[in-house]
């Protein structure tokens, strides 16, 4: 049997298609991308090796990039603020056996199947100064002439996009937490009740600690997806007004595919990748001490 299971040609045949496709598309281009980031290249001219010039420009001279970093960080923190507490609260509420629990769970999760494009277009309309939901609501309750351009004003553009993102993803994180809560042994809850703990104490001392692995997963997901956010920005604001909502991914797209600066764009995407990796590592470390694998 051993020999049958170690049949090299068979193994190769089974694994190679996936391996080849994967290598062609993921690791090799990544390495190429890092290489390109050290060149100055715009597809028409020649590729000139320019060493660290791109990175120097990026970090020292590109004010827009600095704005992107700030925007991406703001984007991330606001997203966490909007999505995580709500997801947590809903997950607690919807694991108690309230009436219609299944309905609520499935409803809240639904927005995740939509594409970023659909959701962005929808919110573009929702935020429209004249015809949109938000301004119409405000007009109902107050100023009849209110026509603020949420996506067009510097101060609100980025935040408006994060709201759209939260609308779509709160249910996702909620469901992750629900699956976590569902796997907490019932005995713990019973024991706590016998000891006279009220709801709040149950949440604080049982649910929250036991949910740490899930929180870790959720935080890693939300961090990497915030870093990568592209669809929403591209459609709702295109980085505007005047780069007020420009994030790393949109800046990369603009530099590489609109201005045809492939070397520079590669530098930006390399920075993005490094950020993704670093944040995953940091988050894993942070949670390592708090995740109890056994109770």
């Amino acid at each position, binding site marked *: *049997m*051993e020999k049958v299971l*170690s*049949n090299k040609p*068979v193994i190769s*045949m*089974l*694994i190679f*298609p*996936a*391996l080849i*496709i*994967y290598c*062609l*598309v*993921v690791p*090799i*281009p*990544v390495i190429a*991308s890092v290489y390109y980031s050290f060149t100055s290249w715009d597809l028409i001219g020649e590729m000139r090796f320019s060493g660290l010039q791109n990175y120097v420009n990026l970090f020292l001279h590109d004010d827009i990039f600095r704005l992107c970093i700030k925007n991406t960080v703001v984007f991330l923190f606001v997203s966490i603020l909007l999505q995580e507490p709500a997801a947590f*609260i*809903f997950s607690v*509420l919807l694991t108690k056996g*309230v009436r219609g629990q299944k309905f609520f769970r*499935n*409803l809240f*999760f*639904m927005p*995740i*199947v*939509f*594409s*970023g*494009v*659909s959701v962005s*277009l*929808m919110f*573009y*309309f*929702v935020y429209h100064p004249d*015809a949109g*939901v938000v301004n*119409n609501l405000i007009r*109902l309750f107050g100023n009849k002439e209110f026509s603020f351009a949420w996506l067009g004003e510097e101060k609100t553009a980025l935040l408006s996009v994060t709201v759209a993102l939260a*609308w779509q993803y709160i249910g*996702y994180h909620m*469901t*992750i937490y629900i*699956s976590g809560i569902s796997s907490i042994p019932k005995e713990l809850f019973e024991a706590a009740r016998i000891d006279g703990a009220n709801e709040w104490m149950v949440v604080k001392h049982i649910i929250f600690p036991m949910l740490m692995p899930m929180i870790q*997963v959720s935080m890693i997901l939300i961090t990497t997806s915030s870093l990568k956010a592209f*669809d929403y920005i591209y*459609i709702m604001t295109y980085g505007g007004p005047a780069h007020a909502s420009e994030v790393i*991914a949109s800046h*990369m797209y603009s530099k*590489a*595919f609109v201005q045809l600066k492939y070397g520079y764009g590669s530098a930006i*995407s390399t920075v993005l*990748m490094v950020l*993704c*990796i670093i944040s995953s590592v940091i988050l894993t470390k942070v949670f390592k001490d708090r995740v109890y694998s056994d109770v």
Partner: protein
Amino acid sequence: MNKNAMLSKIKYIFLYIYSIIIIFPLLFILISSLKDNEDIFTNPWGLPKVYHWNTYLQLFQKYGMGIYFLNSLYYSILGCIISIIVCTAAAYAISRLKWKLSGITLGFLLLGLMIPAHSTIIPLFFLSSKIGLKNPKISLILIFVAFSIPTSVYILASFMKSIPREMEESAVIDGCSIIGAFIRIITPLLKTPIATVTIFTFLGIWNDLLFSLVFINKESDKNLQLGIMKFLGSYGSRYGILLSAIVVSMLPAIIVYIMLQDKIVDGLTAGAVKG
């Protein structure tokens, strides 16, 4: 027990409020899509004065919505099929066959989870134009398959690990080749993880924008996401069309979701949690 009753009411209020937050924009878009421009601006809260169903017709007749749909179906279905075949084979080799590098290979494939698509897109773009792959369909599908490999192989391999060894043993004893055992005995057992993986992959391809944006140039190749974006640009002032396009793009997702709710929820969270 009054406090409890109040607390319970508050909980319900929260839940109802968020339900409204989810449903309301969708409803608003749906109803507004049937209004003409005047109506949208002057009568935002009411039902349409005149029902303009023809915007939906126009989407397909004049604006090529059908083509976008078909293209998306093409990319997604083909991508899924290729991905499932390739990933199941690889997962089988990794999880059930004996070779030294199986662990490393799995780790190598999983590294892909940490890498954002953005870091590969420039070289891929250059590579495909150099090779002269005139047809973006081939390059796009390969790319989609490639990015589906880490998650799919992981889910499939995890599942397959739990299948008892006896399955292959008895088949081999009966004279079956290992491949035969794989195809005839193991694969039928994989209905659940394959369903999960299909949902992931299909959704990922159907909803893609970044790669489609970069690789697709011809109108006739555009997928749904890329296609509906045009309704924002030059048709910006004809809201009926834009809104109808949004509705049409969301409808399939809603319908499929309503039909397969639980499967989808379980599937997507299982994948995320394991990742």
